[in-house]
């Protein structure tokens, strides 16, 4: 069951179960000395009242006590070992499994959820599961089993006494269930409230520059403080009530301690039970609730981990893109055939048709939000189209396995992702089994060699998290070097909008010029003057193809392209006065 809920391995689930059994042994082992103590007390009494004579045999009892002590030690050690080894192993396995799954998800899934959300899913949810496994599951299984076993044995011995120990347990279950039902709805609302505080804090932190130079600062802070106070008050109150309810449940259980006195003494006086039995039950009574309490607490830990477990399951069950993995392309024309696409229920593209021919450069232009980037991503099956089809070399790309398809693509996008690794390895991403020779050539072709040579350790310089130490232009060139190394027949290019100093800019341009030669190129263009020589320009607006053709053809049409081109020419001539 654990393996299905938490997505851990069968072996892990079995090991946790075993750990629970050892926990049960431990609980029983801590309970057994009670019997020994009662026996010793009985021996004392027998001698006191002259029923038995001579000394109480010390070694026999002490020896037994020693065995019990050893049993306690080893049972605990076993449960400890099993649960921590297992939970850590499963924690690692889960983290690897999730990472592997993420890799196989369509990129649209990653695009839909923001980065930190996804990262926190992996981190926090797995940690919650780990906690449930390491401190929850074994304690629950052990506490529950040992409690039931003990009660069963006691009931066999004397059901009236055992009954008075257990009579309150159903009540506890009811209280716990009520709590759960109530908290179900409240938790949702509380999460929202916490988000409200977060949003308030986030806006404040983001706008602090503006606030500091305005008169609004104090007012804003006051409003935020009031919000924080109001929301926190509710949250803390709720937290108090739930803490109180849990305490109540535990203490209801303990009422049995008083009840056994009432029942036991009545039975004793009526002669129904012997003193020894009563004493034994009394001693058990002071011990038995501890494992049960722990079982309740652990159940709480496990229940609260279910949300995390659910999120992990959702991720692991998310459908992957399927397709033929053995496909071999014959040609590299990209054909958009009446493509429509909606994203978050919002139409982004309507009925777009055009062909990006092999060996030609096709530019996509249009105002921001017109659908240029989406088209580019659809071409590589980052998403699947809603209607129509995209085909490469005549085959609908929906029928090609994403990994196979992507072998034929290279990308130079604006947001260059670099890894906290050496320059060399960052370029080598382009081709897994590239030789050093190939990497160096690619770097040269991408005009990277000049800045790499200036770095302290050259190609072996580690560039820090996401390449923080490099300038925008240098990052761009590294990503071009990757594309060179990959040498794919289809190139998707997103021209940079960031301002890069002129020297960098010319180098990037030189590199791109080399890269695109004789490839199928789809370029998202921002600077219209740089695409006037393209083979085909597709002009988009609000998801529709407005016009397409060469620069000359479009300029004659006097449509959107003409207007954008003139605006940009005017912008280019702008200067401060």
């Amino acid at each position: 069951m654990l393996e299905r809920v938490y997505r851990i391995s069968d072996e892990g689930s079995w090991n946790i179960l075993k750990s629970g059994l050892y926990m049960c042994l431990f609980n029983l082992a801590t309970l057994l000395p009670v019997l020994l103590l009662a026996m010793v007390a009985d021996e004392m009494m027998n001698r006191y009242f002259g029923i038995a004579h001579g000394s109480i045999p010390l070694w026999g009892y002490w020896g037994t006590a020693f065995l019990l002590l050893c049993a306690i030690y080893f049972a605990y050690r076993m449960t400890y070992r099993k649960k921590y080894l297992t939970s850590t192993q499963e924690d690692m396995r889960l983290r690897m499994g999730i990472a592997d799954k993420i890799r196989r998800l369509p990129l649209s899934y990653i695009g839909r959820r923001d980065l930190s959300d996804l990262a926190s899913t992996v981190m926090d949810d797995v940690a919650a599961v780990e906690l449930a496994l390491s401190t929850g599951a074994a304690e629950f299984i052990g506490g529950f089993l040992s409690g039931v076993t003990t009660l069963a044995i006691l009931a066999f011995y004397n059901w009236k006494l055992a009954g008075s120990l257990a009579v309150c347990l159903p009540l506890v279950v009811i209280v716990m269930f009520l709590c759960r039902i109530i908290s179900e709805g409240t938790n949702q609302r509380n999460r929202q409230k916490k988000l409200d505080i977060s949003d308030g804090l986030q806006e404040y932190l983001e706008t602090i520059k503006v606030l500091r130079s305005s008169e609004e600062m104090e007012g804003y802070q006051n409003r935020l403080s009031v919000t924080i106070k109001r929301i926190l008050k509710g949250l803390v109150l709720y937290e108090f009530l739930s803490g109180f309810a849990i305490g109540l449940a535990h203490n209801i259980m303990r009422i049995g301690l008083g009840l056994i006195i009432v029942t036991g003494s009545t039975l004793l006086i009526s002669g129904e039970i012997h003193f020894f039995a009563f004493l034994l039950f009394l001693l058990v009574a002071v011990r038995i609730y501890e494992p049960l309490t722990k079982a309740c607490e652990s159940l709480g830990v496990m229940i609260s981990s279910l949300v995390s477990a659910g999120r992990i399951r959702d991720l692991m069950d998310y459908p992957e893109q399927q397709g033929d993995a053995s496909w071999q392309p014959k040609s590299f024309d990209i054909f958009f055939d009446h493509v429509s696409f909606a994203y978050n229920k919002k139409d982004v593209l309507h009925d777009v048709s055009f062909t990006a021919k092999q060996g030609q450069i096709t530019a996509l232009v249009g105002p921001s939000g017109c659908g240029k980037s989406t088209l580019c991503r659809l071409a590589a099956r980052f998403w699947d189209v809603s209607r129509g089809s995209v085909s490469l070399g005549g085959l609908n790309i929906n029928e090609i396995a994403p990994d196979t398809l992507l072998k034929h693509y290279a990308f130079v996008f604006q947001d260059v992702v670099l890894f906290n690794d050496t320059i060399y390895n960052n370029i080598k991403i382009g081709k897994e089994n590239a030789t050093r020779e190939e990497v160096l050539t690619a770097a040269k072709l991408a005009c990277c060699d000049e800045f790499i040579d200036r770095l302290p350790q050259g190609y072996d310089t580690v560039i820090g998290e996401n390449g923080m130490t490099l300038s925008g232009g240098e990052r761009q060139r590294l990503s071009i070097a990757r594309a060179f190394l990959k040498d794919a027949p289809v190139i998707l290019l997103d021209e940079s909008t960031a301002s890069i100093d002129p020297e960098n800019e010319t180098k990037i341009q030189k590199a791109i010029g080399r890269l695109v030669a004789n490839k199928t190129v789809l370029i998202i263009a921002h600077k219209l003057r740089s695409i006037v020589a393209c083979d085909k320009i597709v002009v988009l607006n609000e998801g529709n193809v407005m016009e397409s053709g060469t620069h000359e053809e479009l300029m004659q049409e006097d449509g959107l392209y003409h207007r954008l081109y003139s605006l940009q020419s005017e912008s280019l001539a702008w200067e401060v006065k």
Partner: protein
Amino acid sequence: MKEKGVLGRLFRHMGMFRITMAISIVLSAVSSVINLYAFVCVYDVAKEIVRSLGNMHALDQADMVDMGWRAVFLILMSFGIYGLALLFSHITAFNTVAKLRIQIVRHIGNLPLGYHATNPSGKQRKIIEKNSDNLETLIAHQIPDFAGAVALPIAFLVFMFVYDWRLSFICLIPILVGFGILYYMLKDESEGFAKQYQKSAEDISNAVTEYIRGIAVVKVFGQTANSFRHYKAAVKEYGDYLLKYALSMQNTDSLYHAAINGIFFFLIPGGIILFNTGSNPEKTILSFLFFSVLIPTVATFLARIMNSSSNLMLSKASLDAIDRILKEKPLPETKKPQSPMGYDISIDHVSFSYGETAGKALDDISFDVPEGTITALVGKSGGGKSTIANLIARFWDVDEGAIRVGGVDVREMDYKHWMKRVSMVFQDTNLFKTSVKENVAVFNPDASREDIFQALHLAQCDDILEKLPQGADTVIGTNGIYLSGGEMQRIALARAILKNAPVVLLDEATAFADAENEYRIQKALDELLRGKTVIMIAHRLSTIIHADQICVLERGKIVEKGTHRELMGMHGAYAKMREEYQSSISWRIGGQQYAGARISH
């Protein structure tokens, strides 16, 4: 002990709610002592029975039943008092944490803007939230539970010694052993672990972020095996660390549990020997029973102490994080603020570096910006252009030299006063989730409706207003009403136009919005810059041909200074940049260059 330090610091943050905390601690302690009394009832019953064992009929049934109910009553009372303790601790937690949060909110509002530039807002927010949540749990639950857990063994010890010191001594052995192990476990070793753990948890979190950020690249380049390397290594390190720690504690922890559950191992021989050799068998029997009944509670509470102590240690990290924020020094404010005479800006031998270890971002820089003129800063990224703008706006203060406005050092001016006279454009747009109108009027709360609309009009925002359902009254940033980057920039420009500050710091930076937006932004800039003293970080050299002064920066130094014409005449760095620029703007992808398409001035 370190833990005391944590509590001491925490108590200081509580202010007058130290009283409620104290009440909660006392109540919790009382509750656990009363709880102990419930166990004493069990003993009392055993005692009665033993005393009348010879003659069962002497037992008073009503008496016994009473004792049973008394135990029930004590248990419930103990819980009731514990509930009260929780109530007080939650009151304390709420007030302390709310106070701390508000204190932080106000404090960070006074920090130099440089602090916010280097600490991303999301990260700051998470630190504040996570750590104040931790402290809340600490105050609301762990402190009262800890108090109860400590009070019980103490009360128990008192009970024991009053009862029978000989058996007490014997029972004390495993308890002391237990405490010894506990101390050993929680000592520096585990504190070192907490730090290491934190570090490897951070590593893994960085690795996850990097992995997910890189997922597209990984997919695109089909790097299945390699992509995992870092992530795998981080996960492995984290896992190995956990395992190593868990295994290193396995014997100690097992011993601890054996010790606190093993009191019987000492009690049994002790009791037997005392009985065999002693002279007062009745007393020995009774104390033996007494200890038999009460020792389980010791085990329970010792286990609880262990939990609360390790939690306490983790809370130290939270308190540290919060105190670190509160200890950040606010921007120094002058006692006797001076007002600038005019708005000439003079950068006078200014040096600055971001932190001790970083190199000099600016190295002995000097230039003057006469009032009403435009100075452009050009150069490669990392040359120091933005740093100059940031120092003028007092994100940071200079290390050496001075920045003067109208003859007055910016550090000698009233900060707010100065901020009202500078507009920063294009840093980032920083819009509030309120109406467009309120966003524009944030610096001028008294502005009339006409003024606001005029500013929006001058900032070329008319098309935005037309598009929005309630025009300028539309609340932006929620309910699916989002603006594009270029549109947000124009709203921010309207804000600056309305503010009408005499000094403008302009970063042309991210400018390449789409053609339409760019065109309008430039029109808006024309309005904003008219007649102002302007310092501009320029990227496109074509825009600054007519600037009054151009400073070329390289690695924190000014290498050339002058007008476009003068600099071109020098045939130096500027002239070379200019040449590169010309070639870059006439570049065409995929073909021969168009003759005559060069745009030149």
